[in-house]
């Protein structure tokens, strides 16, 4: 038993420390900071949803925020239309709620849709991409294109979405009629995060996770062993999309406001940076990356203001070129070296090797 604990990777220790920190945080901080930390924890959930997709399965979604935003907007709209046509729609001449808004008036349905809409988008998109024999990098392009289109769409359809101004004045979470306090909301979000974390750990450790890692590394070999890689990719894509949608829904009552910024390319880039810097495939890296960068941003953006994005870009470039495995990834490797365990070395990204224009097939033979 003791041996098992000793053999627990260093990343699990970091997870534990993070958990203890998050549980005790409100004891040391003002309500204002607790609210900020709620948002940060929501971002952790969002980061985890990308890690099972990118870190485990190797599918780099360049537009992951679209799932976050879709979930968030569904819930935001359901709040907005609770008492009939909301003010921002009235100002565009909308007198009656269209059918797809009417169903959102039921909170339970709205919550379900907040999970199902991103899930459905992932399912449709995934079906067409994964069953096609097109180059792997096509997934990256299409997700980027879709996220940018969705952002434009939400900006454009002011009548129903509030346009660039988004939807504001959204209420906090309530239980049995009375709203939850900042502290209660924080712990609720933390509990959800913990559940998502446990789920993701289970996913990675069970056979499904093993197959995902095999898909990432050598998809073609897997086919000849009887697996349908498209099915596995589709499932993880949908699950990832739904968890992202969940985090988007949590975001809405905490932030009271949602806009197309939360659904588009810039926010998608952020989550990519979190995972690039923190490391991917081990869950810890995603969380640490999200945590560090979110807090750095809120602390430094007042100081640096204008050049924060530039700093972020520079940090990302340095990490990708010199520490491609991210902070946690590099730490895990260093630890394995120290304790004499063998190194996977460069095998993690071998599936993402360049495919020459001559073989368009996803099937690659390793000779």
């Amino acid at each position: 038993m003791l041996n098992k604990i000793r053999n627990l990777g260093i990343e699990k220790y970091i997870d534990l420390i993070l958990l203890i920190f998050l549980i005790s945080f409100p004891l040391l901080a003002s309500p204002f900071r607790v609210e900020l930390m709620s948002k940060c924890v929501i971002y952790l959930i969002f980061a985890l949803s990308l890690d099972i997709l990118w870190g485990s399965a190797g599918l780099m979604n360049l537009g992951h925020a679209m799932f976050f935003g879709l979930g968030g907007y569904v819930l935001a709209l359901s709040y907005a239309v609770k008492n009939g046509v909301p003010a921002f729609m009235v100002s565009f001449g909308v007198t009656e709620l269209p059918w797809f808004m009417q169903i959102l008036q039921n909170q339970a349905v709205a919550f379900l849709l907040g999970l199902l809409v991103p899930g459905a988008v992932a399912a449709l998109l995934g079906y067409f991409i994964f069953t096609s024999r097109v180059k792997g990098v096509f997934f990256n392009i299409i997700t980027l294109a879709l996220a940018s289109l969705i952002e434009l769409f939400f900006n454009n359809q002011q009548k129903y979405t509030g346009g660039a101004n988004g939807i504001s004045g959204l209420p906090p979470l309530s239980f049995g009629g009375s709203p939850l306090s900042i502290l209660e909301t924080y712990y609720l979000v933390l509990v959800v995060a913990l559940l998502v974390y446990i789920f993701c750990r289970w996913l990675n450790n069970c056979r499904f996770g093993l197959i995902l890692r095999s898909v990432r590394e050598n998809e073609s070999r897997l086919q000849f062993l009887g697996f349908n890689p498209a099915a596995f990719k589709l499932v993880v894509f949908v699950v990832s999309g739904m968890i992202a949608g969940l985090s988007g829904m949590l975001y809405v009552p905490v932030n009271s406001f949602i806009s197309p910024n939360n659904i588009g390319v810039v926010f998608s880039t952020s989550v990519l940076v979190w995972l690039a810097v923190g490391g991917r495939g081990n869950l810890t890296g995603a969380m640490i990356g999200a945590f560090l960068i979110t807090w750095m941003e809120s602390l430094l953006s007042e100081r640096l203001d204008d050049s924060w994005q530039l700093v972020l870009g520079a940090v990302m470039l340095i990490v990708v070129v010199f520490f491609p495995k991210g902070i946690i990834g590099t730490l895990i490797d260093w630890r394995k070296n120290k304790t004499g365990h063998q190194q996977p070395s460069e095998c993690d990204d071998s599936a993402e090797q360049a495919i020459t224009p001559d073989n368009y097939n996803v099937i690659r033979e390793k000779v």
Partner: protein
Amino acid sequence: MELLLSQLINGVSVSAMLFIAALGLVIIFGLMDVVNMAHGDLIMLGAYITYFVTTVFHASFFLAMAVAFILTALFGVVIEATLIKKLYGKVAETLLATFALSIIIQQVVRMTMGPEDKFVGLPIEGSLTVGSIVIPQYNLFLIAISILILLATLGLFFKTSFGMQLRAVTKNRSMSQCLGINTTRIDSLTFALGSGLAGLAGALLAPVKSVTPYMGTAYIVDGFLTVVLGGFTSIIGTAASSVVISESVTAMAGYMSEITARVLVFCIIIILIRFKPEGLFTSERR
């Protein structure tokens, strides 16, 4: 009916714009197999260089085009030597690194030039009226020059020794090395060519819409989709798919909002690729 016709004719100039933007991409992405997420920003740089040359230095637009081409080509050489070369074969890293580079370029430009729109005047003003259809003369110029660029690129690829070496390297790298081709130099020149074309595209597109630090993002998404639909490696395919995509969007945009048209075209592309993953047009190299 007339609306449709006028839309289709204007669609040709939109196609020309898309083609010019995507041409550099088909060379770098399709042929060299390098995913350069900063490609759109090279277009943006070309546009800003044009702004400088025409508006600040009051020089001719055509000089601006040449300067934009040369400067972005040189910048491409630098990017290739410092960044791309180190990450050959690692698609994920190249994608992320060029993504980061894109952010850096955008922010540097924004911080030095300001985020507000800059304008470059049309070098050729006035329009041609055919019946009730009005075609700006600059659009005709764009169409003409895009055809010129297409022919010049095809000529370069198939009639020059550089083109032959480039095609050899992309088909079979190690064999080309055995035959004495300096693949490092070819890589550098090819990337420079692709970047230069992006800069040229930026110059040509500068008068059409305003010049902003973020203008590149739209082009990179559209550019990639065009290249994919066109068959990844085919220059003619890219030209053809630019026409197909732009005409579809422009025609549909006459009857619905442009965004809805773009979403529809996007869905059609995904479905098309599912059934024809090699793109609509196979490579002319075979």
